[in-house]
């Protein structure tokens, strides 16, 4: 087997790829100068939801909250607190969450563990877009909520809520595993209040 000449094959030039990546970043940066609103409509309408909650909802929500599969999106420091949460001592597998999917298609939950830079932002946005509905986001740590200590930097996105809607905010830098587990519990409570009738 011989390898043919590389010229003329379907390989894009590095410069071209870099240029396109830069354009994508600048476009995203320009379009996300304001944070997205928190998806908290359901909090105000809680009372009405309770009436509409059917038994189908109950079963669906039970299934969805008991098997939240997180996607791999671990840019920085908080990732290791997340891994510790997944490890033996805190063990998120108790909640059926140890199936950490590398493929966003099969995941339900994005735990945004770490600082988001503008260079990474299009990728995170893409991972979020690739996740199949229904999907949720937990912003873990100061960097994910507001940019934290790096918020004033030239290359850091001040909070994931600029590019994706965030359901639960877990403060801390990084949050302890228990704090993250508490955030996951809030997430499960939120899922339990979904209703397929009004959600559509």
């Amino acid at each position, binding site marked *: 087997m011989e390898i043919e000449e590389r010229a003329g094959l379907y390989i894009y030039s590095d410069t071209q790829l870099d240029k396109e990546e830069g354009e994508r970043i600048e476009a995203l940066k320009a379009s996300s100068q304001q*944070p997205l609103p*928190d998806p*908290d409509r359901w*909090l105000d309408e809680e009372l009405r939801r309770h009436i509409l909650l059917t038994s189908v909802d109950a079963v669906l929500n039970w299934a969805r909250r008991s098997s939240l599969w997180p996607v791999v999106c671990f840019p920085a420091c908080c990732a290791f607190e997340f891994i510790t949460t997944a490890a*033996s*001592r*805190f*063990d998120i597998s*108790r909640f059926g969450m140890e199936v950490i999917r590398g493929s966003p298609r099969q995941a339900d939950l994005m735990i945004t563990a770490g600082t988001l830079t503008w260079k990474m932002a299009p990728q995170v946005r893409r991972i979020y877009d690739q996740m199949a509905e229904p999907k949720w986001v937990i912003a873990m740590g*100061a960097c994910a*909520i*507001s*940019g*934290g*200590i790096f*918020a*004033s930097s030239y290359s850091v996105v001040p*909070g994931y*809520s600029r590019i994706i809607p*965030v*359901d*639960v*905010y*877990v*403060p*801390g*830098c990084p*949050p*302890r*595993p*228990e*704090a993250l*587990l*508490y*955030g996951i*519990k*809030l997430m499960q409570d*939120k899922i339990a209040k979904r209703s397929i009738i009004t959600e559509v």
Partner: protein
Amino acid sequence: MKFERYGAGIAKGMVVTLKHLFRHPVTTQYPEERLTVSRRTRGNELIWDRERCTGCATCAKSCPQGAIRIVTSRGEENDYIVEEFRVDSGYCIFCGLCVESCPYEALFMGYGYERARYRRRELVLNKEELLTSEKKQPSGYARPKVEAALPPQTLLLDRDGVKK
């Protein structure tokens, strides 16, 4: 792969995993069982003592990122009245430099960590929310007196010899 050890290496490893099957798991079942955190823990909040604070703003100056906002006005006895004291706990990194630098011991790190919220704006703590309450207790970080009163930390080391 050469079976230099005729598969003995694999067998050895299998023995280790098998041993773990009969060991006690180290898991703490969080919502029911709780670890006692360190007495010096830097929990995910700040606690502010209204009486002791003189409004000198040393904490705000020592903060590496300017997460503390403090507004004061001149009082009758030529002192400061703290009108606004605000910490954004979604921005704060809980490094503890403000607590260490406070000359009047008016600022504490919190002992609690369950501070997740559904809304971004709920993370911004105002004057009233920074006071101690039943759910908000100060930790002993840089405050030896508080530290002495807190229970000792649970250590994973102490679970080493525990058999199933």
